């Protein structure tokens, strides 16, 4: 353990790193050891992809505190650029995903640079506008998106479908690592500072404009790659699904259910979302959006840190005390202060406080 720890970055706990590797190896080996039916195999593949997308949404929503209701725009751009590239060029599929992601990142910067100077609800409202405007443009730009009838990709071979599982797993692993880097490094500290108080962040030399732009571009790239992956996985995409408001909301839901601003939370949120979606859509096709709404209200009312808040409560029951700052998540960070609590201590006296 100690030798492993020596080449890890200082912010990474060796136990977390070991757990991460164990889970990855287990998931990698799963389809080799057990015969998975195609449905389960597909659900797992989608889950990996959504975990990546949810983490990327969380960089903006959780780390910087800018809740986006418009991430479907990048998901769709990534998806359609990838699809067009795969149809009309000989580019290998992973290159098409990357190009799709990069275009989505640039698109994010295009609308994000002006709107990110808004904060809180004002930014959220602007992103709804961006998402809907993008959806409309995409729906009417039928030469590119195929309009409301969408576009089809060649049906992939069974082997390719199998391989997508591992590609999604690698993608998710990379995004998890990037999430930890963004959260734990000096940059992460700057992002939390912006979330807590933009003016104070500027006073200490954190450029809110620069870091918010960087985070949005990274987030857009990952969500765009997810969109491209989604296109490859389903071999058929259409604008109202890719760019729809439900798509944006789904990312918000994953973040909120799991616990905004936390890494494990966003990942768990994506898992729960996929499970809920599969079961609710099958059983209550008319009601499921309403049920999501209720779920959202319940989480925000009773456990603003979502599943990770519940986990932390559980951990406290068995005597684990998380260090300060671990829970710097929540909407606006307010939940965390409350959860960790602590009354002001007595005032220091003159003698104690002076050298």
């Amino acid at each position, binding site marked *: 353990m100690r030798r492993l720890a020596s080449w890890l970055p200082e912010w990474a706990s060796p136990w977390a790193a070991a757990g991460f590797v164990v889970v990855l190896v287990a998931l990698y080996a799963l389809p080799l050891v057990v015969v998975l039916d195609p449905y389960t195999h597909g659900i797992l593949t989608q889950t990996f992809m959504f975990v990546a997308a949810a983490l990327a949404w969380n960089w903006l929503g959780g780390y910087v505190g800018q809740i986006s209701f418009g991430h479907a725009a990048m998901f769709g751009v990534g998806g359609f650029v990838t699809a067009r590239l795969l149809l009309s060029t000989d580019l290998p599929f992973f290159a098409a995903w990357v190009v799709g992601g990069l275009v989505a990142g640039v698109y994010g910067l295009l609308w994000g640079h002006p709107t990110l100077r808004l904060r809180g609800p004002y930014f959220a409202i602007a992103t709804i506008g961006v998402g809907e405007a993008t959806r409309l443009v995409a729906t009417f730009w039928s030469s590119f998106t195929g309009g409301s009838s969408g576009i089809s990709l060649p049906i992939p071979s069974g082997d390719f479908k199998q391989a997508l599982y591992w590609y999604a797993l690698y993608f998710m692993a990379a995004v998890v690592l990037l999430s930890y880097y963004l959260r734990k490094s000096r940059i992460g500290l700057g992002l939390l*500072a912006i979330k807590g108080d933009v003016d104070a962040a500027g006073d200490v030399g954190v450029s809110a404009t620069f870091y918010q732009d960087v985070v949005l571009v990274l987030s857009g790239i990952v969500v765009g790659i997810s969109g491209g992956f989604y296109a490859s996985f389903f071999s058929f995409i259409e604008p109202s699904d890719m760019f729809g408001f439900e798509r944006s909301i789904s990312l918000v839901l994953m973040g909120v259910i799991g616990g905004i601003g936390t890494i494990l939370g966003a990942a768990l949120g994506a898992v729960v979302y996929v499970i809920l979606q599969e079961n609710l859509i099958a059983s209550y096709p008319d009601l499921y959006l309403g049920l999501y709404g209720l779920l959202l209200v319940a989480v925000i009312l009773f456990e603003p840190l979502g599943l990770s808040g519940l986990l932390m409560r559980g951990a406290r029951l068995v005597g684990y005390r998380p260090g300060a700052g671990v829970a710097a998540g929540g909407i606006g960070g307010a939940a965390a202060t409350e959860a960790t609590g602590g009354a002001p201590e007595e005032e220091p006296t003159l003698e104690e406080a002076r050298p």
Partner: protein
Amino acid sequence: MLEIDDIEVYYGDAQAIFGLSLEVGEGEVVTLVGSNGAGKTTTLRAVAGIRAPRSGDIRFEGESLLKIPPHERAERGIALVPEGRELWPQMSVRENLELGAFGKRARGRVEESLGQVMSLFPRLEERADQLAGSLSGGEQQMCAIGRALMSKPRLLMFDEPSLGLAPILVRQVFETVRHLHADEGLTILLVEQNLRKALESADRGYVIETGRIKTEGPSKELLQDETIRSAYLGI
């Protein structure tokens, strides 16, 4: 070092500062004193870059700051200890301090600066891993001062550092100001309501009233001034 030249600052249509000029020379402690709503905080916010003046100029070491964004001003050596501390309550004391050294110039010396701040305020070392929101008022003020020092500033601006503190802590805050000036050689712009304490710590003072400088001069003279004594000190 800092020259504020005839600035006018507005909040929407409401004018807060009317042609204010002020100068802080290298190595000086200058205080800007006045009552509530006189425009003291607004002046500091203009220097820090949070609120842009509509006209006039602000120069730091001869160069105009008006086109420089706030985070760049921190990089140039201007630090603000804001009114009400403005710490990040959900982050630990150490994280708050480290954020103070976010800029390029201060980044490489985080550990060294942390050591200096902790030896100035040993209380912060004990509290390093606590959430800043759980500190008492006096400790929060130390943390805010420490955060400003982490950026290795040359001009340190205090916005009402004595606000809401017990008398013993007020005394301590002013002692810290004197220490930073005398022993660390920092240039200080101190904004205060506590006129007597501020003038006792400063070389020169400006008295601000409804957005205009009313009187200025060496602190000793201002403390003797009859009108100031009757208007602000009640003697």
